[in-house]
């Protein structure tokens, strides 16, 4: 009984020290500030659009996170997303296929391109940075050549309706999709042998190999998962825009790179691999989306937006550091 009472505050201090707690606190503080200082922030329409954007950014972050786990990178997430989206659009518009076929096909396309990345990395022994930098141009270039940069917009109305659906007036269902995928990823890493092999291979590939983990195969699977998640993000972007467009992730898919890195890194996923925080990546992406939305509401000069966003992220990280030191000191004094 006494031991459990002593353990309770220790657990409390541990959770207060966690990255995720800090992110939740920062999200709450900024939400309160934006809601009090700008009339539009708390409006149902703005909360709905914020949730929708955050959901897509979270999914883009997940698609990078599952590769960062291995100590690698996937710079081609945007290009893979654009290819999956265009494949989905082509199947829908050209053949009129139903969603039950086109959605898995788009995800399979993403996974297949991810497998190409994984195989090239494993077989060449080159760093994923080099390989995915090259495949980013190859995937995107082939897609533009094949589609002649023409968008597909004769898509099933259900997908656009899904993007516009609002629960309780302000909750986007896309946010629920991201939360669901996040739960599945958390279960993968915590509950399955494959997830544990991914973490082990990322932490120390040589040690994992000696322990019987087929590291090369695990890396390929991580890249396949990354490609499939980029496909999910692309389908969510289609639900937002109602069309499959080549420029949905910018030229070469580069527009997805910033959200791809920010969420996982802010959330505590180690760039060197071996450690992951799915909840942290979710909250990190949500924080960045919230800050961007709040700054737009403040009507910060458009060209200052990135500067202010950077400053606020820096301030957020420093505040979080201070919080951890305070909590640690408080915990030690007890």
């Amino acid at each position: 009984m006494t031991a459990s009472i002593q353990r309770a505050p220790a657990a409390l201090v541990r959770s207060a020290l966690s990255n995720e707690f800090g992110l939740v606190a920062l999200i709450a503080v900024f939400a309160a500030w934006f809601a009090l200082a700008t009339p539009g922030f708390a409006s149902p329409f703005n909360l709905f659009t914020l949730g929708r954007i955050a959901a897509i950014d979270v999914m883009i972050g997940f698609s990078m996170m599952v590769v960062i786990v291995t100590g690698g990178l996937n710079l081609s997430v945007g290009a893979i997303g654009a290819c999956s989206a265009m494949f989905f659009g082509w199947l829908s518009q050209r053949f009129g296929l139903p969603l039950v076929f086109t959605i898995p096909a788009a995800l399979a396309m993403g996974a297949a391109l991810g497998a190409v990345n994984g195989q090239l990395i494993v077989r060449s022994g080159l760093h994923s940075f080099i390989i995915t930098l090259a495949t980013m141009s190859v995937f995107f270039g082939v897609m533009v050549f094949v589609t002649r940069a023409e968008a597909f917009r004769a898509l099933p109305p259900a997908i656009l309706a899904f993007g516009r659906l609002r629960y309780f007036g302000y909750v986007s269902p896309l946010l629920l999709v991201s939360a669901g995928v996040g739960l599945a990823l958390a279960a993968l890493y915590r509950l399955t042998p494959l997830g544990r092999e991914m973490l082990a291979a990322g932490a120390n590939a040589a040690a994992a190999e000696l322990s019987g983990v087929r590291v090369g195969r695990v890396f390929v699977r991580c890249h396949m998962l990354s490609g499939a998640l980029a496909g999910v993000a692309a389908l969510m972007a289609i639900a937002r825009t109602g069309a499959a467009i080549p420029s949905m992730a910018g030229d070469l898919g580069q527009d997805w790179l910033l959200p791809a890195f920010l969420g996982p890194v802010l959330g505590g996923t180690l760039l060197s691999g071996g450690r992951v925080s799915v909840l942290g990546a979710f909250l990190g992406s949500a924080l960045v989306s919230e800050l961007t939305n709040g700054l737009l509401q403040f009507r910060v000069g458009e060209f200052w937006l990135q500067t202010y966003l950077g400053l606020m992220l820096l301030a957020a990280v420093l505040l979080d550091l201070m919080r951890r030191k305070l909590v640690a000191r408080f915990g030690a004094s007890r």
Partner: protein
Amino acid sequence: MLRTSKYLLAVAAIALAAGVSARASDATRVALVPGGPHPYFSAWEKAGEDAKKDFNLGAADYRVPQKWELNLQNSLLESLLSQGYNAFLVFPGDPVGSNSTVQELTENGAPVIATAGCLKEPTTALFCFGTDTGNSAYLGTKELIKAMGGKGRIAHFTGFLVDPNTQLRIDAVEKAAKETNGAVSVTQVIADIDAPGPAEEKINAYLAAHASDVDGIVTTAWVPAVVAANALRRIGDKRIKMVGIDHDEVVLKAIKDGFVNGTMLQNPYGQGYIGSYALNRIRNGCKVKKDAPFKTIALTNRFIDSGTVYADASAVDNYVASMQSITKQIFAGFENTYLDCP
């Protein structure tokens, strides 16, 4: 008695404030939103300021997405709606991908005019008000062919491949060349270069290797026009003829100095000014005429040409007057031609 008077005064003040607030929210607040930062759109800022003053608008603000990214533009538009803007002039970040956001704006009671670039039909935008890009590229190439003496080889420098207007421009230049029955050919098309870095790299590399292989250059995007004009000045050879686009100082000076033959001017000021006026009229009860004499172009059958004009060395000093003259001309007949007003 005094207390009752105070209450009445307070109630009256609240009612007055509510009335003012209602009127304020009724005023037309126009947001002029390009696809990203680009010198072409800088004239929209002045156009908005002038429109606000001349038409007594609540606001007519030029709001630029921080970079050319469809998602950023969509987010900015959604944010502006929740900030109280109730009318939008939008250069679509993508002719198809912007449609969904435009529909959300119109569903929330904010009319939208696609400006300087069109949305692909079907769209809830009222109409498209911009330059007929294909026609402009065609006319510019015809001027170039004339300057080349009706024969020779052309290099075409143009914008981003993901912009469907780029394909229209490429086709238009080809069409003008084909009309010469083989006397003129397009030997090189360099696209995806409407940004300083890639434009400098690709145009300079091409001219360094192949300047002697071309007799004329046509550019159909702002940045390639500037870079090509600078390159011809550096080479110093006026043998190569060139027709550019838009009104960057570098291009205008190169025309005066004889390194560039002319430029296809567009009318961004008129787009912003007349577009703001039209939105205000729409918000005050006017409707777009069903039988208005819209043009049909590749993306839409509700197109209004904001005007384009070729300016050579003889006209370059008066280019502002040329654009103002076009604006006045379109504005004078706009309401009668395109709107039904009570």
